[in-house]
């Protein structure tokens, strides 16, 4: 009897009790008495939450109605989303003139177009794209949103911004298609590859100045109706405040963090005291301070509007928070990096800018995004001091005659909007962290 086979016996599949759905359920949910209890309790919570919210928020909810009374007439126990639906423009744009909403939308689209190349592969010089988005886009957006007469400075900035948009977009397209940058492409297009460097540069400068002049002439007879900042509101205002906050908190935080680690005693002491002062205060007291004290700080007759006061307060406050985040990242970088950079002759700014900061920023990405999320969420505090941001608008619904007393649905809607934005941001930061990690662990995971 041959018991030796030439073929290896194929592995048998795992027993059904281990591999099937039932097996998974048994291992993960019912493997001990305690876990069974936990599972049943969790199932009960899920059932109560889902059925309660589902019935209230979906199956019994009213989506279209004229006013709250009609909501009640249709369904007593359901949510009255009709109020939110009829206020949706207010929630997103505040009291911005309805005929001018395209300006806000255009501003948003322009920002997306401006920033999109940062995420595209094969595009070169991303740092310039990012810098231009931070330093030039705000002027264009500011003009778009406020409108009115533009002085010579504003005209120039709008022109520069227009050139930047056009250049950025072209550059990104060329980059995606051929992997070259815009100047390289232009030189190639004009068949000047053989020409001397000086000629090439002059040619490019000529093209640039022609574009600038063309853009300047183009924008000269544009005129936009003035929209006072008091008409701004809703999600738009929240995004304006938090956008400016985000754009200025990171550079401010980096400067403060470097100041805190500086060898110069005075600078270090100043940075520490500013950071510790703002970090020990609640944001709302800083906002109150801004609205009550800034008018006193300014010379007589000079009035800062409330929006600017709030923005300054938010920027200062979050720069200090960002400084601590950045400091955490700087501490994670081994001192050898700095010493090595000094050895090959780098000065302070080169060491920091080219060696330490890039590494530190990569380590800090989750925390930076965390601070950004915090900033976005905390922007809702401006509603307390009387700006109509998204929360202010949501609370105003209950003061509106047809929807008097409608509290819960608007707040839940606001919570959902924030949840979506913040959740996407935090998931993206996780993704970035994984993508940028170079293999060596710096934290204790």
């Amino acid at each position, binding site marked *: 009897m041959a018991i030796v086979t030439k073929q290896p016996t194929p592995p048998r599949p795992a027993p059904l009790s281990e591999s099937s759905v039932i097996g998974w359920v048994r291992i993960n949910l019912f493997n001990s008495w305690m876990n069974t209890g936990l599972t049943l309790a969790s199932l009960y919570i899920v059932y109560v939450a889902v059925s309660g919210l589902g019935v209230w928020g979906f199956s019994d909810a009213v989506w279209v109605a004229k006013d709250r009374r009609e909501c009640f007439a249709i369904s007593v126990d359901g949510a009255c989303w009709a109020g939110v639906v009829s206020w949706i423009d207010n929630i997103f744009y505040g009291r911005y003139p309805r005929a001018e909403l395209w300006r806000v939308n255009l501003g948003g689209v322009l920002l997306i177009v401006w920033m999109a190349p940062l995420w595209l592969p094969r595009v070169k010089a991303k740092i310039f794209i990012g810098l231009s988005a931070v330093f030039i886009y705000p002027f264009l957006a500011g003009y778009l949103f406020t409108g009115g007469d533009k002085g010579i400075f504003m005209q120039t900035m709008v022109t520069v911004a227009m050139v930047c948009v056009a250049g950025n977009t072209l550059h990104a397209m060329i980059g995606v298609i051929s992997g070259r940058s815009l100047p390289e492409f232009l030189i190639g297009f004009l068949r000047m590859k053989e020409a001397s460097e000086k000629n090439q540069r002059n040619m490019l400068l000529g093209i640039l100045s022609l574009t600038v002049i063309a853009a300047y002439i183009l924008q000269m007879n544009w005129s936009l109706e003035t929209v006072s900042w008091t008409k701004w509101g809703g999600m738009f205002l929240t995004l304006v405040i938090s956008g400016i906050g985000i754009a200025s908190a990171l550079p401010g935080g980096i400067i403060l963090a470097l100041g805190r680690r500086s060898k110069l005693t005075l600078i270090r002491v100043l940075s520490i005291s500013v950071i510790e002062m703002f970090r*020990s205060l609640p944001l709302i007291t800083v906002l109150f301070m801004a609205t009550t004290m800034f008018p006193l700080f300014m010379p007589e007759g000079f009035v800062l509007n409330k929006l600017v006061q709030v923005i300054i307060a938010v920027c200062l406050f979050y720069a200090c928070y960002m400084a601590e985040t950045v400091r955490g990242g700087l501490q994670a970088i081994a001192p050898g990096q700095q010493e090595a950079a000094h050895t090959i002759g780098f000065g302070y700014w080169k060491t920091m800018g080219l060696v330490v900061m890039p590494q530190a920023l990569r380590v800090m990405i989750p925390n930076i995004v965390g601070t950004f999320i915090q900033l976005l969420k905390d922007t809702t505090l401006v509603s307390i001091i009387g700006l109509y941001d998204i929360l202010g608008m949501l609370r105003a619904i209950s003061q509106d005659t047809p929807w008097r007393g409608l509290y819960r649905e608007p707040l839940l809607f606001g919570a959902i909007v924030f949840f979506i934005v913040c959740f996407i941001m935090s998931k993206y930061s996780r993704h970035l962290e994984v993508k940028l990690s170079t293999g060596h662990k710096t934290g204790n995971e």
Partner: protein
Amino acid sequence: MDQGRPDVFTAYALKLCDGASPHSGLAPIRLSYESLHVTLWSIIVAANDAETTNKVSALIKPKEHFDFFHDERVRSFLYQFLTACAVGWVVWYLVSNTSHNLEVRGMNTGFGFLTSSAGFDVDFKFIEYIPGQGTYFDIFLIGCLNSLFVSGLAIVGCTILGFFIGILRLSSNWLSSKLALTYIEIIRNTPILVQVIFWYIGVFSFLPTVKNSVDLSFGAEVFLLNNRGLNMASPLPGDLFWLTQVAFVVAVIGVFVLRYWSHKRQDDIGKPFPTLIASSALLAILPGGVYLLTGSPLDWDIPTLQGFNFVGGFSLPPAFLALLFALTIYSAARFAEMVRAGILSVDKGQSDAALAIGMRPSRVMVLVVIPQAMRAIVPPMISLWMDVLKNSSLAIAIGYADVVSLFMQTTLNQAGYAVEIVAMTMAFFMTISLTISALMNYYNKRIQLVER
């Protein structure tokens, strides 16, 4: 200055090595790699030697002239001087503007207003205060105490709830873990202000009226919840009640002694002592016995319905409850993440080893994992507690009488004195935060010594 010299040599030496390395085809100096190293090493050693240094520096003649703008000391002085000038100018500018503005607007200054009487009432207070007689300083104290009270309770609540949820998040039970994750993600990604307002007008305003109060104590009518808040019985201590309090303190001290003794005993003879049972028994029996022996000297002031409201007992306004709930639930979500990260930071080998020597999983958690996880949990936990105190200032959105809404808003609107009031409110927050962070630094230094 001497420090720089070996570097010059090292750089030179490296250059030589590079040129003579076996990989480059053109070796400028035909020497074996080994002997080159020895030569270079002797040069470096010689360079460090003071005498040779002088000789060599005489040969090399470095540019040692004093360059004013490239000298480190001059530069550092210059930078600091410029910063000092700029900051000084800004401060002077702000102060002079402020004093000028105050003068122009005819606003009074000084802290004298603190002793003048305030005309408004406060609905929730811990100290005696009569409107019209109490001073603004009383208002400040009431505000501070209210802030501390709500944040203290929220800190206790969020720590317990967050710990529980953090453990649940790590549970092997898939469903509970995902449920905890859902809770954490939903709460963390929505603004706390929205949550505070939601609890206030979305939940605590929808409670039944006073007449139809919900009884939370199952028919005993000592915890009554309605849309005016939570009414509960308050204790009225009798003459000899202080003896019970003393007994309680003695029992607490006894627990600490017992703990110390049982640790020592376990170290000596290796047998554990049932500390938990013994200390709970001590805590229950000693004060309880004294209380009964002195003839139960404690009465309860039970809230009773008179007219349209409850009289007697202690009542917590809905704004307080909303703020407490919102703070607890929001901070618990953040704390749960800290607990999870802390426990995951403990090396898996630790719990494996503990299991290998036969410890039960629950004891592994309590005796091995959690004590080590605390090192990672405590620092962020303390800053979370500080955040709870700071977030308690959101009371202003729902009208709970905390320091910001009472002092920085109401008093500022009534009395003026913007500079003083803003400064005092900030001082309150800064005192507490800076004290805590000083303690924090001390703690961090202490646990760093333990670290290997």
